[in-house]
């Protein structure tokens, strides 16, 4: 058994509550729950963390990583770079080592001797004989494997100063009522802790110190939050087809419905969930339920949207409420199914043949996944059209600190314009596609409403305002132009953009959306600290409201920051708002990893330099 510490040539990175730890594991080895335990323990000590799972499209045997950014200032974006690598996967050893910052740390399993050539000189190496420790203590091979992960959590707790009681409490919560599982886990943790205290005193320059920087915030995955939004927003029908990274959303909807939506008296369900045979059937079920007056949604990712497009066109033209939650991943084709991107804007905004346009909502975090999912069900009923909630893998499948979910009990559902039996009986004129209010939104009736009035035939073919089949040009124009008017109405109903102004007047602006939010917030602060004046606008929906036009008009140049190759939001701004392309400068990050503040700052400064702009602070320095 050999525990060793080998100092590197570069000075040790010293940091308190501000560093990045990355765990390199083999998937299916039970590392996920140990790593999550570690992340949660820091939160319980009041220190914000943002963990990210970087996983393969595979169940067992391939490399997987868990990256934890610790940051007491609350910056939750991926930082980039690694201060401490817990290298548990020989397959990725070389690339994992290469990622460590000079002066950073490597923790590895030293049970088997490794040649010196396998290491780097400029990093500090901590060898822990994890396999040997477990082999000595446990006899069952499965236990040896699983508990190895808990042992390294114990070693880390000792080195970083994580309070052991916090971990013990978390393990107690995790294995509540399962004493048989709790005891070996506690034992393994303590073994690691003692080992760490004994052999690695002051081996690490990274420390965790208790703070009160988490506050009331909750720690939840965007998919779970979106599922809760659908429960609270009144969705009763969910149809879906398994696809990464959206499956856990449908599964969370099932879980929360089983808890919150079962009729107490009868024990029966106030919801219906169908795992359909494909995405075409999923959207078909949602269209049928929406047509019949139930709130319905489907959840999918890019390839699923591709399959759904014919139905999306029908729902647009026949004016049927539909909610589609797109948890975006890397495309095209199967692309990077377990990596994140914002690359489905165009395919969703203009999904289907013919002239179509759809409403898109861009949540920034789990809290907005909840808010926007609930809102999308109201918007779908109000606008009688498909509504897309455009989340992504980074928000959807990672636990993220965010404001607690909130609901106002005085809120009721907006069911939109549904003509009732009484109104029909009273002789109110019903034209299914008649614009009576001037907002482009007609009234609808639900099947079975009235014995002799209000029935109509729904179709994807042209019709007159009274839903009678017609191939006449003027009737067609009446419909498609009314749909444009409806889209105009949507501008005021969707979530409005969020403006953040620099301390002084700024010539430059930046537009961003969705999961770019935490990286942009961090970049804003860092640029501001350097004296770089940059206003930012977080776009939260398409169609774009007038505030977006104003923001662009007020700045000489606007950076449009996106996580896709083709600058899709920029294209939409140019085409829909008629903006001069020269004024919209794309900043694009699309390698499948979440965008970082480092990347944004670097890209913005480079472009500013190219435009001969110096930070105000720097100019002042020269003048003095």
């Amino acid at each position, binding site marked *: 058994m050999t525990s060793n510490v080998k100092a590197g040539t570069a000075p040790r990175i010293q940091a308190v509550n501000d560093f990045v730890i990355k765990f390199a594991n083999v998937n299916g080895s039970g590392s996920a729950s140990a790593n999550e335990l570690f992340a949660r323990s820091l*939160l319980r000590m009041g220190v914000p963390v943002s963990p990210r799972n970087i996983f393969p499209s595979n169940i067992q045997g391939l490399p997987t990583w868990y990256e934890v950014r610790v940051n007491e200032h609350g910056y939750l974006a991926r930082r980039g770079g690694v201060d401490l690598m817990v290298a548990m996967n020989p397959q990725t050893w070389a690339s994992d080592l290469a990622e460590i910052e000079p002066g950073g740390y490597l923790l590895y399993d030293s049970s088997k001797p490794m040649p010196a050539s396998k290491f780097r000189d400029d990093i500090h190496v901590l060898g822990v004989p994890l396999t040997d420790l477990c082999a000595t203590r446990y006899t069952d091979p499965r236990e040896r494997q699983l508990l190895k992960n808990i042992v390294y959590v114990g070693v880390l707790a000792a080195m970083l100063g994580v309070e052991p009681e916090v971990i013990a409490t978390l393990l107690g919560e995790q294995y509540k009522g399962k004493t048989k599982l709790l005891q070996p886990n506690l034992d393994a943790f303590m073994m690691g802790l003692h080992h760490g205290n004994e052999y690695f005193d002051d081996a690490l320059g990274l420390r965790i110190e208790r703070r009160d920087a988490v506050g009331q915030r*909750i720690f939840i995955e965007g998919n779970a939050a979106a599922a809760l939004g659908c*429960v*609270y927003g*009144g969705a*009763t*029908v969910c*149809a879906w087809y398994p696809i990464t990274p959206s499956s856990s959303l449908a599964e969370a909807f099932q879980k929360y419905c089983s808890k*919150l939506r079962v009729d107490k008296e*009868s*024990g*029966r*369900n*106030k*919801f*219906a*969930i*169908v795992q*359909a*045979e494909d995405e*075409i*059937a999923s*959207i*078909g*079920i949602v*269209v*049928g*339920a*929406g*047509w*019949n*007056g*139930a709130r*319905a949604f489907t959840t999918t990712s890019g390839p699923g949207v591709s399959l759904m497009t*014919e*139905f999306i066109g*029908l729902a647009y033209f026949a004016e049927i409420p539909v909610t589609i939650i797109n948890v975006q991943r890397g495309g095209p084709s199967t692309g990077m199914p377990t990596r994140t991107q914002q690359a489905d804007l165009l395919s969703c905004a203009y999904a289907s043949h013919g002239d179509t346009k759809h409403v898109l909502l861009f949540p920034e975090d789990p809290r907005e996944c909840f808010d926007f999912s609930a809102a999308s069900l109201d918007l779908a009923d109000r606008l009688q059209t498909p509504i897309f909630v455009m989340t992504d893998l980074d928000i959807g499948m990672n636990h993220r600190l965010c404001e*607690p*979910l*909130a*609901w*106002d*009990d005085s*809120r009721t*559902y907006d069911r939109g314009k549904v003509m009732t039996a009484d109104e029909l009986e009273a002789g109110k004129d019903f034209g299914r596609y008649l614009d009576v209010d001037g907002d482009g939104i007609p009234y609808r009736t*639900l*099947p*079975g409403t*009235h*014995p*002799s009035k209000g*029935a*109509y*035939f*729904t179709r*994807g*073919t042209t019709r007159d305002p009274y839903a009678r*089949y*017609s*191939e006449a040009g003027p009737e067609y124009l009446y419909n498609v132009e009314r749909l444009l008017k409806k889209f105009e109405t949507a501008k005021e109903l969707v979530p409005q953009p969020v403006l953040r102004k620099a301390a002084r007047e700024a010539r430059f602006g930046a537009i961003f959306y969705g999961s770019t939010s935490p990286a942009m917030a961090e970049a804003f602060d860092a640029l501001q600290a350097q004296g770089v004046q940059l206003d930012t606008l977080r776009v939260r929906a398409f169609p774009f409201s007038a505030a977006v036009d104003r923001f662009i008009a007020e700045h000489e140049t606007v950076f449009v920051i996106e996580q896709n190759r083709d600058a899709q939001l920029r294209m939409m701004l140019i085409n829909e708002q008629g903006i001069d392309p020269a004024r919209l400068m794309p900043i694009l990050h699309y390698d499948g990893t979440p965008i970082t503040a480092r990347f944004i700052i670097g890209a913005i400064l480079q472009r500013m330099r190219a435009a001969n702009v110096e930070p105000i602070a720097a100019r002042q320095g020269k003048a003095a």
Partner: protein
Amino acid sequence: MTYLAKPRLHHPTLPHNKLGFTRRDYEGKISTLCAGCGHDSISAALVQACWELDIEPHRVAKLSGIGCSSKTPDYFLGASHGFNTVHGRMPSVLTGANLANRELLYLGVSGDGDSASIGLGQFAHAMRRGVNMTYIVENNGVYGLTKGQFSATADQGSKSKKGAVNSDTAIDLVAMALQLGASYVGRSFSGDKEQLVPLIKGAISHRGAALIDVISPCVAFNNHPGSTKSYDYVRAHNEAVNRLDFMPRRDAITAAYAPGEVIEVTQHDGSVLRLRKLAEGYDPGDRLAAMSHIAQHEARGEILTGLLYVNAAADDLHGHLRTVDRALNRLGHQELCPGAAALAAINAELV
């Protein structure tokens, strides 16, 4: 003018059903299909069946895909909501509509191209889920609306109007439905209203997935010698296993038959299907025997018609999903929203 309204003049002597409706109240717009089309006879049979069952027309939802058959829901039950959906995808839309409101009757109308070609997957999955519906395939073995291409139910060796011979094996939707777990399966012929009307009535009263495959000759593109879906061919090769009498729950059962010739099946709503047996030893309650019987007759070139299989004890998708009795679309925010207190409790667990 691309649609034809039907004159609303009613003949004073038309008989009324128990709700006071005449058959006219169950009609729709004037059909725009070709004169003599089998599909119009099926529409007429649907009108007759709904009228005889005393169904309130607005309590029916009619859904269809795309094609000649899928146009027909506009030509019957004008007081019902209808939905002409996407080619081959009616089953999913009907499933969703049914989930939203279990209190209506769902009528799915499709064709052989719609259900056996582009929509075979959706057809199969709706059957295996046991969606409570009457699913009618108006089967003419040909694409009528695009002028005469073979469909997937066209028999191997049959000839198109232009003389092309179909070399592909035919898909038998009845055999598939049996294999997939449909709980009411029948086949009929658009020219045999006497058989078709009670078959439809039985299907509407059935709880679960009910399929009726109706051979419906296409007078424009598939009614020539060499076709196996022509009026002449079907009349010559029709082999009925039984004759169905449908008795709603309210009617006293008076007809008498010799024992051994009649099978009575009581459905969940109390209605009785009385089957006068025509084929020796045929038992419509035996799914495996039904599958074998169909296969044997198909091999002989005979088209087996009648009620081929029924499981009156079947449950439907709502039963499988354990949904509440009340229609989901009538639940309001009080019933659906768990409220702020429950959310606060969830938040408390998320740290």
